[in-house]
């Protein structure tokens, strides 16, 4: 398979389109196989430098990208905003251009503000990969979720698949990327949350909403739980964690109403006992561990797609 990166960046799911998603998932399968080898390492990106530029803590995403880069033999640079020039008042533009000046071919950006990777992409010649920007997008999370689903369902077609996304969609980049990707592939997406945690507008979203989880759960093929941030309660968006769990938590009792083959997903890190019961998270319906495993393969695919050339070794 040869690299045919449509754009020089990966900023959002929408810009990939259905073809881009299919191509990246196909490539990811190759790297899943590579990762099963005794020595899961390829010289594919030797001589390339991948910088991770994280303005927000995220150990798992950063490690996943760095592992992916190293397995492709790229050099890596790590930039954490904490204790850096950023805390001394350096602008986003200066920081990004400084990293590029050190020779980065790709810059993986995580920022608490929506659109920061898009801005960086305008300021540098290097390839920019969005590793999560505010509430906006987290495209590699969506791709790894799709790859995980493909494996579990044993099919490449998501046409008509009933996916229920439960929780704080309003503040979730995982949901924005996930809903866009699932809709592009033909899934029927339902968002379930109290109205205060649903997007203020669904204009342009391909999905329906409800605030009654029990109503939709028995017909659901995939239930995707989002992490509940406790600060939303302090902001007055829901009355209490107990009430949230009662109405929207995937408890053992509630899970019993699911179809036997319903798949349970969560992007992590989980609040066990709040949005998901420990027994469900660790149960046979859950693919939460596979999601993490697939993250490395998907990020290898993205890096190679954007930076590589020729055929996958």
């Amino acid at each position, binding site marked *: 398979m040869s690299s045919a990166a449509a754009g020089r960046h990966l900023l959002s799911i929408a810009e990939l389109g259905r073809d881009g998603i299919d191509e990246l998932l196909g490539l990811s399968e190759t790297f899943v196989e590579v990762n099963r080898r005794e020595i899961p390492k390829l010289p594919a990106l030797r001589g390339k430098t991948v910088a991770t530029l994280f303005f927000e803590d995220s150990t798992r995403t950063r490690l996943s990208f760095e592992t992916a880069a190293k397995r492709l033999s790229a050099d890596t640079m790590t930039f954490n905003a904490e204790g850096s020039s950023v805390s001394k008042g350096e602008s986003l533009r200066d920081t990004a251009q400084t990293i590029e000046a050190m020779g980065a071919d790709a810059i993986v950006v995580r920022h608490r*503000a929506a659109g920061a990777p898009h801005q960086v992409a305008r300021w540098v010649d290097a390839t920019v990969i969005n590793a999560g920007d505010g509430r906006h997008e987290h495209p590699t999370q969506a791709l790894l979720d799709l790859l995980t689903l493909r494996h579990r369902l044993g099919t490449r077609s998501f046409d008509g698949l009933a996916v229920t996304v439960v929780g704080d969609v309003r503040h979730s980049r995982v949901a924005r990327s996930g809903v866009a990707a699932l809709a592009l592939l033909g899934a029927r997406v339902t968002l379930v949350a109290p109205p205060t945690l649903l997007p203020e507008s669904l204009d342009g979203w391909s999905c329906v909403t409800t605030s009654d989880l029990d109503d939709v759960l028995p017909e659901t093929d995939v239930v995707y739980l989002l992490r509940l941030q406790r600060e939303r309660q302090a902001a007055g968006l829901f009355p209490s964690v107990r009430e949230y769990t009662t109405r929207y938590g995937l408890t053992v009792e509630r899970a019993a109403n699911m179809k036997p083959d319903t798949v349970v997903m969560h992007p992590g890190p989980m609040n066990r006992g709040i949005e998901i019961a420990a027994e469900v998270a660790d149960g046979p319906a859950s693919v939460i561990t596979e999601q993490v495993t697939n993250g490395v393969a998907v990020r290898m695919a993205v890096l190679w797609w954007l930076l590589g050339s020729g055929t996958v070794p």
Partner: protein
Amino acid sequence: MSGLLVRGGRVVDQSGAGGPVDVLVRDGHILEVGARLTGPTAGATVLDADGCVVAPGLVDLHTHLREPGNEDAETIETGTRAAALGGYTAVVAMPNTDPPLDEAAVVASVLARGATAPCEVVVAGAITKGRAGVELAPMGELHALGVRLFTDDGGCVESAAVMRHALEYARSLPGAVVAQHAEDPTLATGGHMHEGAWSSRLGIPGRPAAAEAVIVARDLMLAELTGTPLHLLHLSTASALDLVRAAKARGLAVTCEVAPHHFTLTDAACEGFDPVFKVHPPLRTAADVEAVRRALADGTVDAIATDHAPHAPEAKERPFEDAPPGMLGLETALALTLTELVEPGVLTIVEALALLSWRPARIAGLGDHGGPVAVGRPANLCVIDPARRWEVDPTRLASRARNTPYAGRKLTGRVRHTVRAGEAVVVDGSAQR
């Protein structure tokens, strides 16, 4: 003989639009107006106005000059040069400087620095000390320095009681108008663009339209309670304009302004996350833009004000959510009005200039501005070439900042000359100082 002869332009003022005339200016005043003046014009500098509109100088109710405190974004010198190039002969400087314009000494220093500027600088005083929304600023002392407009702009007076007391207190100050930046902080704070389809898609926290209407509704009630004139700054939503329209029908002493960006741009402009499109109140929906145009056409709106808000380039090179709100306006407001409102027939040229000149002059109590272009009046004039096509180039603006959202936009209509108190401060589109 000295003086200026503005030759061959068509006068447009509150009495309408006339045929080509010459306007002779001497000693800061209009000496004569008539077709093909001769005789006393000898020695006067000729300003060619052939094919142009000769109008009273424009008056901006809403200019952020950034001095003192943010001179890296704008100064009184650069801001008033931009104003003169935009056709303005008077601007009202907003009080959200550092320190704010909330006490007599600071206001006096701004007025002193503005005294030699190419356009008249008057000051809007803060309503509350430090614009903190708690204690009243010394409104009487500021009034004695000539302040007529009071506002905590940049922020909204959140407390209904404080707003009520400001309106009540202002009753003792002749000509005083209390002006509100109408966005309920409890609904808008933490938001960075209009809350709606685009904010939900982009994941940018929103500022709902209701934040504006809530304060407008409340403050209209308070204006009714106190009997003080209320001015509503930069209204941006259909619902707020509906409230004002109804209040005016009831006979309430309320005026309002809109900014050019609210009748020319929508929230869709934020799609690329470029903070140059970030402004408070935010760019709204296409339906709101339509409503603003309708309210301009039916007389609900009293003034087009720029909300000229310069920011240094690096301030707008932050993420959208971190960048400060605001955009430039002084050098594009007139051309946007002509291109977007007069050309399509939303407003006549007389109505447009009413909104840019004599109606805001009246709100601000600026008797020397806003015309008419008549013998004996102070010579504050702007000469507009209504057919001139040009393209907005941020690097060629006189403002110290570059944050115009109209880069590359093609506009029709440009200021050829500006005359302030008898002095030609802009000639053939060039600032003279």
